[in-house]
């Protein structure tokens, strides 16, 4: 019996689902070259390069960047650049912290018995079984009550007043990222034999050296995939950020959401295209690095 035998039904369904997954993305990318500023209809790709932007009503006839007119426009948009900066800052900080904290917890849960083990293990499932919006409004309530209290008791005023911002977003991101990191690393630790560490200690390495030279290199692939998951979760997050951000801490998803409720120019499509490309390249290269380390 051929193990790779497939029924025509499965193949047809597969093609259909892949089409369903990719059609919207292809459309999105296509419209980023749209000549129409209103972006309602596809008026063809901006045809020509020229000294400066030439418009005919809402149609772009030619542009210094040619078909990539909207991408150039985007580069001039300070709001987008700021949002992109915020998004990266938050994602990188939150990924580093949640990976460290989550890996520690994974080691604890996989290796040790301690009193609050069950509590720690169960609390990891909170972000999975509770809708994100509940966590979002919970964090918002916490921060607003806490800040209200602190601002009034400490008599803070003006710029010193505590308010929602990049810190509250990052801190909340870390909270929902830790469980995912922990669960991923924990799953990878399941096959990890204690005897490797014992061998290192047996050969004269103390606890810290053992961790640095043996444990960490061996669990690194698991930690990396945990970090990768955390990073994409942070980049992708809308709901928690929506409730915990404040002035000056707008992230890209929040920015795009804001645009969708107003006028949409093909700039949004250009932004989306870049986003897809960046994430695609980042994930692909990380995947390749990981494959290499796992093979080695």
């Amino acid at each position, binding site marked *: 019996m051929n193990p790779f035998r497939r029924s025509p039904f499965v193949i047809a369904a597969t093609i259909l689902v892949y089409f369903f997954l990719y059609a919207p993305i292809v459309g999105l990318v296509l419209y980023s070259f749209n000549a129409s500023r209103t972006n309602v209809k596809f008026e063809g790709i901006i045809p020509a390069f020229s000294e400066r932007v030439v418009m005919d009503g809402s149609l772009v006839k030619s542009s210094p960047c040619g078909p990539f007119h909207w991408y150039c426009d985007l580069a001039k948009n300070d709001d987008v650049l700021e949002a992109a900066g915020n998004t990266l800052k938050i994602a990188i900080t939150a990924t580093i912290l949640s990976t460290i904290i989550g890996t520690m917890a994974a080691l604890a849960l996989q290796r040790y018995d301690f009193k609050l083990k069950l509590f720690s293990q169960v609390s990891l499932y909170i972000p999975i079984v509770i809708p994100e919006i509940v966590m979002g409004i919970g964090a918002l309530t916490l921060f607003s009550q806490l800040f209200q209290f602190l601002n009034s008791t400490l008599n803070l005023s003006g710029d010193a007043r505590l308010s929602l911002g990049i810190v509250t977003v990052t801190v909340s991101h870390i909270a929902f990222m830790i469980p995912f990191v922990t669960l991923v690393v924990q799953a990878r630790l399941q096959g990890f*034999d204690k*005897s*490797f560490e*014992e*061998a*290192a*200690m*047996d*050969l*004269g*390495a*103390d*606890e810290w*050296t053992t961790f640095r*030279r*043996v444990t960490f*290199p*061996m669990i690194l692939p698991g930690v990396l995939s945990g970090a990768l998951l955390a990073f994409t979760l942070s980049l992708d997050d809308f709901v928690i950020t929506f409730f915990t951000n404040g002035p000056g801490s707008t992230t890209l998803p929040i920015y795009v959401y804001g645009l969708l409720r107003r006028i949409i120019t093909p700039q949004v499509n250009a932004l989306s295209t870049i986003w897809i490309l960046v994430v695609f390249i980042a994930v692909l290269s990380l995947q390749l690095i990981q494959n290499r380390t796992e093979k*080695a």
Partner: protein
Amino acid sequence: MAGEFAVELRDVVKNFITPEGSELAAVDHVTMQIRNGEFFSMLGSSGCGKTTSLRMIAGFEWPTEGEIYIEGKAVGHTPPFQRKVNTVFQNYALFQHMTVFENVAFGLEMEGAAKEEIKKRVAKALEMVQLTGMERRRPRQLSGGQQQRVAVARALVKIPDVLLLDEPLGALDLKLRKEMQLELKALQQQLGITFVYVTHDQEEALTMSDRIAVMSKGAVRQIGTPVEIYERPSNRFVADFIGEANFFDGRIKSLAKDEALVYVPALNADLTGLPVSDGLVNGEEVVVSIRPEKVRITAEETMNTNLFRGKVTNTVYIGTDTHVYLDVCNAKLKVYEQNRISRLDPGSFYTVGQEVLLILPPENTLFLKKD
């Protein structure tokens, strides 16, 4: 070298908490002394406490009670990296992310040895296990036997006082295992390092060891040389665990200085002239044990003591021996007879139902304490 003993366990207890929450003694008041330069084996089936004992010597577990001495120093609570013992792990535990060279060099690096010295000593260690030229390979690219050699080299390169080996040959196939047994033994004799070897394979233990500790249920049942363990087991467990034996219940009828008379109801006879073992008193219920190859089948009626008439119930030819199963009075007895003569002639076999005479030689018929 401090003291006569390389390793000493004094009244060591190790309790584990089972998942159900109760305490389980994996090692239960074990005392043993391992001499400098000897090849010492701990033999027993799984769960007998041999591996736990080894792990306590290595420092991976701490004794609940009692104390462990290495070269005369109490080390019960010293972490593994401060002990001059090294371990060859059952699964080898080679670092997959390091080359063979890096694996073997790891322990020397931890000592802070100079680069040049590390190079020299690693090369020597690899030569010792015949792996010269494999330095740059990764463990995964080696065969099981080669990985085993790397594990040995990695532990020996540190020149430990004691080398601990936890069933190191368990994963190898039979032929390779036999080869490695002899090689390890030769290595031990050449280096003069004390080896403590854990195994569940009695043949392996008998082949390699100077002395063996037979363990069961967390306790040592007997410590002795291979010959002592086999020829003079001190209890029924050891007699049963090592090799094979016929057992009969009996009662001591008279006990002289160097001879005893034991009545065996199943044979409805007295066995006379048996060697006396310590700690048994007249009238005590005992177990009589005799190894199948020690029983002699004879053709002619001699004036021998302990002579019985038996009836053959089955014979099995296994190449080196023929196993003969007999009914003797109310007892069942198995006898292994070496095939000194060719059995090609069917007449040379015992036939089922044939009556034969048997001698239970008194010097090899033991009576042991009931377990």
